[in-house]
């Protein structure tokens, strides 16, 4: 490769440094030594450009694969070294400052960088308070009705779904498990209403794995459809406690902040009766994190004034809301209050709906 060729390399707008050939400055100087007037002119023009574009080297531009790999490893090693040194330095500084050290910065997570949702409920807002106070769950929250829940499955459930239903009914007081018998949901719902059921839970399964949950509030909606995942039955949980008792559990609803989240939270709350029996020391948790709702069922004990122990009782599962429908279940003609449209809504990782 002659000097002429090298000059061609250097004339690009972005000035590249070729590490395996030594520093680039030498190469830029070389064409000047060639007895060529035009080349000299070009050099004088190029000189300020060098200052504008400092040598930007990227390993990915190396064409030789072995070399690229080697350089990448070296670059990675170097970066790690720098990082560790930096960390050590900071630690030393903190120790030197002692108590006066500035507080540690809060780590960035996608939750605390959440895109602001304008539907976040302001508890002082009169209109929203009224809207919530008169919605479909108002009779439950005004203590006019006692929840009575029917749990059923998709048609012909297999082992895991059946056991899951049974375990779910031990968690939710006053719930009844019925075999579906191939009945249509639209025919089940009027029968439920006539028998004073307040909620209907349908577990869907796919190839023996429970994967969906329809929760319908009766008599006039709404209906929520969840995707269900990570179902662990009692048997599969390690360090579990003894079988749960028949006491009415406490309910914890975490992080349901938006207007939609509030509706969903109220829906879960209305599954459990008022006035938990604290003697049972059992608590059911619906924890929302990044739009995934985690369900856990625990027994707690106060070991001392400061320490508390918890013991999981199971089952555990994760829910993700797919749609909220106004009225009872009607997948064909029902009106959706909210439906998850993945293409349109999942544009930002930091946008959450619940």
């Amino acid at each position, binding site marked *: 490769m002659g000097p002429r060729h090298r000059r061609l390399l250097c004339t690009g707008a972005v000035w590249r440094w070729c590490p395996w050939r030594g520093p680039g400055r030498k190469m830029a100087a070389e064409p000047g030594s060639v007895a060529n007037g035009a080349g000299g002119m070009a050099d004088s023009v190029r000189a300020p450009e060098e200052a504008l574009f400092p040598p930007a080297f990227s390993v990915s531009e190396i064409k030789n694969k072995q070399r690229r790999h080697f350089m990448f490893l070296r670059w990675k090693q170097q970066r790690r070294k720098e990082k560790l040194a930096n960390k050590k330095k900071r630690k030393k500084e903190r120790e030197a400052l002692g108590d006066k050290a500035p507080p540690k910065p809060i780590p960035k997570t996608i939750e605390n960088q959440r895109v602001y949702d304008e539907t976040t409920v302001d508890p002082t807002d009169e209109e929203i308070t009224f809207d919530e106070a008169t919605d479909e769950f108002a009779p439950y929250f005004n203590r006019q009705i006692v929840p009575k829940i029917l749990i059923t499955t998709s048609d012909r459930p297999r082992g895991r779904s059946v056991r899951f239903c049974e375990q779910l009914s031990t968690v939710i007081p006053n719930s009844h498990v019925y075999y579906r018998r191939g009945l249509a949901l639209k025919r089940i719902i009027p029968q439920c209403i006539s028998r004073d059921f307040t909620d209907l839970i349908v577990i869907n399964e796919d190839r023996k794995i429970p994967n969906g949950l329809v929760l319908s509030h009766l008599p006039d909606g709404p209906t929520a459809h969840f995707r269900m995942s990570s179902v662990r039955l009692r048997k599969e949980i390690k360090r579990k406690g003894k079988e749960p008792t028949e006491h009415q559990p406490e309910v914890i609803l975490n992080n349901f902040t938006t207007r939609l989240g509030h509706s969903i939270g109220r829906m879960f709350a209305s599954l459990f009766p008022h006035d938990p029996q604290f003697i049972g020391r059992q608590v059911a948790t619906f924890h929302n994190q990044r739009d995934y709702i985690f369900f856990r069922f625990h027994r707690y004990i106060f070991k001392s004034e400061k320490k508390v122990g918890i013991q999981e009782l199971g089952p555990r599962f994760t829910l993700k809301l797919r749609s909220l429908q106004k009225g009872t279940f009607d997948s064909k003609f*029902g009106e959706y209050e*909210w439906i998850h449209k993945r293409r349109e809504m999942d544009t930002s990782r930091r946008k959450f709906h619940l």
Partner: protein
Amino acid sequence: MAASARWNHVWVGSETGILKGVNLRRRQATNYLPAAALRRDQGVCAMCWGDLAESEILVGCLDRSVKLFSAEKGKFTESRQCPGGEGPFCGLAVHDSSIITCVESGLLKVWQDASSENVEIQVGGGVCRMRQNPAWPLCVGTGGKENALKVWDLHRPEEPIFRAKNVRNDWLNLRVPVWECDLQFLPDSEKIVTCTGHHQVRLYDPSSPQRRPVLEVTYGEHPLTALSLTPGANSVIVGSSRGDMAVIDLRQGRLVKCLKGFAGSVRSIHCHPTLPLVASCGLDRFLRVHHIEEKRLVHKVYLKSRLNCLLLTSCEKWEDEEPELAAPQADVKEEEDDLWDVMETVATKAVPKRRVHPTGQEPQLDKRPKKQKRTSAGP
């Protein structure tokens, strides 16, 4: 307060009984309550303009009261009960000082000031929507579940002037169910466009001998709940219960474009008569204004309650009008004159009219009634 209520761009009726005025330029929404307290039984189920100047709004509530809201005063001025029939209002219209109401059970009534001469028409049960023909206010159309489209002349309430016929049986020779969800009259022709709960958009032409639809388009898989004609009346915008909104061409019967951004069912759509803007609201508690040509979401306003119906002003100086200019003028009439001035300078159709007049500069007060007549005749 009075002036600010007048300059609202969109009026929205909510399920909790609140009339909301939204000023899009200032990005603020104001609540106007009919009573002192919120009541769910006063949920708004129908709305229409009370006069052609769009200074009054008629609001039909769930408890069968029709209230008159004055945009000038910024409050509810009158209220009257319209009992009879069952179910909520599914249409509200105004004609010379008389109110036309229609309820779900199919009782269409014309409420005149002298209550003795009320016209009553039984249009058949399960009505979903009643709409007035803007070009001919005495003509209304009704349609509903198992209740095919009918067009009524209020002077001759015995028989509908047009009764649609159901489409032919399908390929299994089964009857096709009828469910007209919304309808609208096309200006400059007798045609009527409807959307159905079985995701069809149909175009009827009463002037042709055919009583079946002359055009049928299907869109999506979910019931179409609302529709509105675009400014040129060449296409129609339909909204579905899943929150899809699409522009459908009425000449070829083709899907032109989809407008995105909805999370829940669309309850009401309203296009601006001249500008390429469309406002829509629904169960997801948002008011959205889209640009039709560019498919862009121009405004999105969270209004806290489920929204049932909306009205969009037809004023044309959309973004740049200055509410402060009108504020100092105390007299309401003068303000109205100002509005007419504004409308004249902008309207494209006003230009040939002006040429007809021998003197270009006429006193504005003389002109006013004439123009009202023109607008009542329809574009």
